């Protein structure tokens, strides 16, 4: 019998939750799906060694739901991946986010795990991060005193480090509704298809003007220490005609950029060609 020995607070609305957070110190953590916190506690993870109080945010209506308002798609922080996978709005406007969400864990995990929970600990393997990055997502953060918005890329400081301050709660994820017809894809490589921790994830969005690349957004997860965009590569590709030679060239450069970020590792001999091949196939798929 396992009791993780924490006090569990279950506020019914955002005001109460922020009030509890304002009084809390670093021994208090937010609990949503429990797929990270409860596992961490039962496994004795160092990240939760000091945690004695959990604030369960599942009952808070303000942190749920997906809707579009003023050109922004707003996703509640405590929205589960199953809810994201079922959303018509996400399917239509943010297909890469749907695809990334559907690759997470198993149905049991997707029924509990939440989108903010995916990136709020900034684990490098967070599957939705590359998708959110290519969609230029930002997040709304609230504390009892203030509300602030920050881009997801800025929020993600380093492996397991974010900009979240004591007393703050991620409340919503905001994605500008894509105005033009971007084509794109998301790819995840894990050791098997289900319940797999990602080894490599890539997301690409391309806006084509005939055969010319009018705009391109590229992001990685898992393969780099934190999810990141590739502005240099994006700039290089913009305005060029999408030929097979260009795609090969881009893939080669992508590999070099990833290597530049990660440094040479024991796994580089394996990962480099895989990144390049994955990226090439992603681009090829989008071209078709």
């Amino acid at each position, binding site marked *: 019998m396992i009791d*993780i020995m924490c006090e569990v607070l279950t506020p019914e609305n955002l005001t109460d939750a922020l009030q509890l957070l304002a009084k809390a110190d670093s021994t208090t953590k937010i609990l949503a799906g429990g797929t990270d916190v409860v596992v961490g506690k039962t496994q004795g993870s160092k990240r939760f060694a000091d945690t004695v109080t959990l604030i369960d945010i*599942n009952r808070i209506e303000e942190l749920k739901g997906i809707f579009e308002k003023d050109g922004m798609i707003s996703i509640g922080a405590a929205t589960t991946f199953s809810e994201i996978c079922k959303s018509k709005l996400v399917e239509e406007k943010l297909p890469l986010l749907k695809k990334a969400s559907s690759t997470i864990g198993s149905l*049991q995990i997707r029924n509990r795990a939440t989108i903010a929970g995916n990136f709020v600990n900034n684990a490098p393997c967070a599957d939705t991060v590359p998708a959110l990055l290519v969609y230029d997502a930002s997040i709304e953060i609230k504390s009892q005193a203030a509300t602030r918005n920050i881009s997801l890329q800025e929020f993600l400081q380093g492996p397991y480090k974010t900009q979240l301050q004591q007393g703050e709660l991620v409340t919503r994820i905001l994605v500008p509704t894509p105005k033009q017809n971007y084509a794109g894809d998301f790819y995840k490589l894990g050791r098997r298809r289900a319940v797999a921790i990602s080894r490599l994830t890539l997301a690409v969005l391309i806006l084509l003007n005939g055969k010319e690349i009018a705009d391109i957004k590229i992001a990685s997860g898992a393969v780099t220490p934190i999810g990141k965009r590739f502005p240099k590569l994006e700039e290089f590709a913009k305005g060029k005609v999408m030929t097979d030679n260009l795609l090969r060239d881009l893939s080669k450069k992508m590999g070099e950029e990833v290597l530049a970020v990660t440094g040479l590792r024991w796994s580089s001999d394996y990962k480099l060609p895989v990144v390049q091949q994955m990226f090439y196939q992603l681009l090829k798929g989008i071209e078709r």
Partner: protein
Amino acid sequence: MEIKFILNGKEVSTITEPSLRLLDLLREKFDLTGTKEGCGVGECGACTVLMNGKAVNSCLVLAAQVNDSEILTIEGIAKGDELHPLQKNFLLNGAVQCGFCSPGMVLSSYALLEENPNPTEEEIKDAIAGNLCRCTGYKQIIDAVKQTAKELKMEVKA
């Protein structure tokens, strides 16, 4: 703390530690030992129960989170002595060997059929992807789910 919830169709209440896992709450406080503990970290699905109609790993849900919810365990799907069609078809198809994964498998399949009475093979595989079986393999289990879907459809027609 005191929590109240609906367990297998009956309203129940109990005094519990708030951070006890639902898995332990079911097994230790309610003697519902059909729910199994495999990995304890949400990877094997042996502890699957339905929470508000959705399959969840009961090793990842805390007692305090169960308050006011509806929980269905393997003990709750038969009608008295009459097995649920899924249980019957698991037996008929040889989908049960050691039986440790069966409660979770049946409940994941149950949640699937409630939502999608006519699943494709891919949809069945996706629904049970979070349930590991190390004995019979998955073919017999998928066959059992398919047969149940067919029977339930005929029942609706008849």
